[in-house]
């Protein structure tokens, strides 16, 4: 289970609303490489992982992704706070506003709604961990793209923090992959899914 702490993992204080920037960074909430998909991917993949270190990593990184989702959602909220109908029309935010007013809804920058097809749970630790490493790199690239589009320091600062966390998570998933491969190598098994091909549990490593 989870319990809530009344704080963000990294502070967000945006004093200048800008709905155009909000429409770009909302992709890291509900877009193809966004934080919601990341949290759902890791937290869903953990159940069949037969190694406790790797299950721990998926649990803790998945939990941190929920905190990142909150950071991005907070940024979208503060960038769209107290907008007038004129500002909404002039900034092109009207297409979002008509369906969601100033609420924060998970979608990609292009308006495509979040859906579970943006991630996979394959049930094979090697396959899933390679997806996880790719996901961290794709999110890092998205943050790079965002940083090329915006210059407001109040927005760039938390975006840079989130970008750095993608790099750390990539490193940890790389270590998870090594752990799984080492355990497979112990018995010289290669084309084998340790979550399926043999009765396997955390007690039977």
């Amino acid at each position: 289970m989870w319990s809530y702490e009344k704080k963000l993992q990294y502070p967000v204080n945006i004093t200048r609303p800008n709905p155009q920037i909000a429409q770009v960074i909302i992709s890291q909430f509900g877009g193809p490489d966004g934080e919601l998909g990341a949290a759902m991917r890791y937290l869903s993949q953990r159940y069949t992982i037969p190694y406790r270190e790797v299950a721990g990593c998926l649990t803790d990184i998945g939990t941190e992704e929920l905190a990142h989702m909150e950071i991005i959602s907070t940024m979208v909220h503060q960038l769209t706070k107290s907008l007038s109908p004129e500002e909404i029309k002039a900034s092109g935010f009207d297409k979002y506003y008509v369906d969601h007013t100033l609420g924060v809804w998970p979608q990609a920058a292009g308006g495509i709604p979040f859906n579970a097809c943006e991630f996979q749970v394959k049930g094979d630790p090697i396959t899933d961990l390679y997806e996880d490493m790719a996901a961290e790199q794709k999110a890092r690239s998205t943050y790079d793209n965002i940083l090329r589009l915006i210059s407001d320091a109040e927005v760039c600062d938390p975006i840079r923090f989130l970008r750095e966390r993608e790099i750390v998570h990539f490193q940890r998933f790389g270590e998870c992959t090594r752990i799984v491969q080492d355990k497979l190598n112990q018995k010289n098994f290669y084309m084998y899914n340790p979550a399926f091909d043999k009765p396997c549990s955390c007690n039977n490593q």
Partner: protein
Amino acid sequence: MTMNQLGRKRLFKFICEVDFALDDICLYLDTHPCDRQALEYYHKYKELREQALAEYSECFGPLTSNQVEDHNYWTWVRDPWPWEGEC
């Protein structure tokens, strides 16, 4: 800004920094559970976190719902939420 608010901000920032150090070392320990240096680091920051959290909730209000001390009002909903830009 009053001294009280200044103290609140400073302590809050300290808690956020200590928590981040813990978030990061926890991930490292997941894949390096035998690293004694990392475990020492974890225990040091865990203690700092516990002290700072206790001090904060006593002086400024709860950061988790199990820190509510008041018997007359549910203070969990009194203070701003993180997305309001206070934190």
